[in-house]
Structure formats: structure tokens, C-alpha cells
């Protein structure tokens, strides 16, 4: 279970910005999100970053009900 945040074009692709999703790990969460093939394709793109509780993560990680998972498209800069 985690609060999931989508930024930039990911939110446009998915049609939502924030959702609570049942998942024990980040890998599980990715699988759950893949139910939307457009979002799955967007999240698989290059330079996509994932932050758990506002820290970038690169490996799989366990999630709790309090976890906040953010999917970040390539950053555009300010």
C-alpha cells in the first residue's frame, strides 16, 4: 500500500495525479500500474526516476501504508 504521485506527462497519460495503491514492494507497484498500458509504456522510458519518501531509489524497496512513491519523468529544469 502506498500513496502514488505522477508528475509531468505521466499524469496526463494516466489521467490521474495521485492515487493510493495496494503494493508490498516497488516492483509490485510497477506491476499494478502496468494494468494501464499507456502508463506502463511511459514509465518504461529512458531517464525516468522514482522517489520513495522524497529520496531517489534505483533498486526494489519494500513499501508501507505510509510510503509516498513518486514517478518522475525526465526533468525539464526550471
Amino acid at each position, binding site marked *: 500500500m502506498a500513496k502514488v504521485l505522477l508528475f509531468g506527462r505521466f499524469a496526463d497519460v494516466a489521467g490521474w495525479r495521485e492515487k493510493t495503491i495496494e503494493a508490498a514492494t516497488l516492483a509490485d507497484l510497477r506491476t499494478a500500474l502496468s494494468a494501464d498500458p499507456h502508463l506502463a509504456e511511459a514509465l518504461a522510458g529512458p531517464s525516468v526516476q522514482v522517489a520513495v519518501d522524497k529520496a*531517489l531509489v*534505483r533498486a526494489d524497496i519494500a513499501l508501507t501504508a505510509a510510503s509516498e512513491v513518486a514517478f518522475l519523468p525526465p*526533468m525539464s529544469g526550471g
Partner: protein
Amino acid sequence: MSVTLQSAPFDPGQLLSRFSVGRDETGAIASFTGLARAERGQTTALELEAYEGFTDAEIAKAVNAAIHRFGLQDAVVVHRIGAIAPGEAIVFVATAAPHRRAAFEACDHLMDWLKSRAPFWKKEHGPDGARWIEPTDRDRTDAGRWDTPFDTPASQAAQDDDK
């Protein structure tokens, strides 16, 4: 040192006034203001998305690194988020140092970092609709000017891994 993300428009001059008072040992203040361009009607508005709590923390890390690297006495960053009209300020950076070379280089460096590596997502609204923008090659090259073997930002390292 301060980093602010705000959706309300700001006057860069007011920020510079506040930053420059009471500095008896500061010889040099460099500032940069980035404004939204109309592009002769091609851009009607800019929309900037940040991840509050993450974006500001990443900027603060970059500012603290610049303070250390360039020997700054102080630095400030104010960045707009949300919808920005042409002619409005998007970003303001000011740096204070005893001498001008450090103030200029730090300000230049911070802007290169902000334009290419800061966690923002930018949408341009024009007469033909809206589109998401990514950093230009020039932005990446400019930011690369400052890289040292000791200085690969976490976000950049993560990006490189993904490629």
C-alpha cells in the same frame, strides 16, 4: 541561504533589495532573473510543476554545494511554479561573495544546474495546444561545464544509470 517555490508572481528587484542590504563585507552580488518569453505569440503561458518537499530540497542541496564550492557568503533562489505569463519572472538567483569572480561563477553555475537538472516539469501552452518540454542539448552542455570527478549530482547519476 534560502530557497522558495511560489505560485505568486514576484518582483526580482524587491528580492535583490532585500538580499543586498546590510552587507558590510560583501563586495559582489550577482543576480539572474529568468523571464517567460512570448516567442512572438507562440507561447501564451508556461506551466511549471514541482514536487514540493523534493524539488526545494534538491535545490537547497545544489545551493549549499555552490556556497561551499565558490566560497559564497550567501545565496538565494526563488522559483515560480504553476502558470506563468510572458514577461513574468520564472526564477531569481542571487549570490554574495567578497569578490566578483566567485559571485558571477556561482550564479552562472546555479542557473545552469536549475535549467537542466532541477526537478521541474515544464509545459508550454501555445496557439496549437500544450506540450511538455525537456532540457535542450545546450542546457546539458552548459551544466556539464561545471562537472568535476567529485561532483556528479545524485539525480544525474540516476539518470545516467537509466540510459
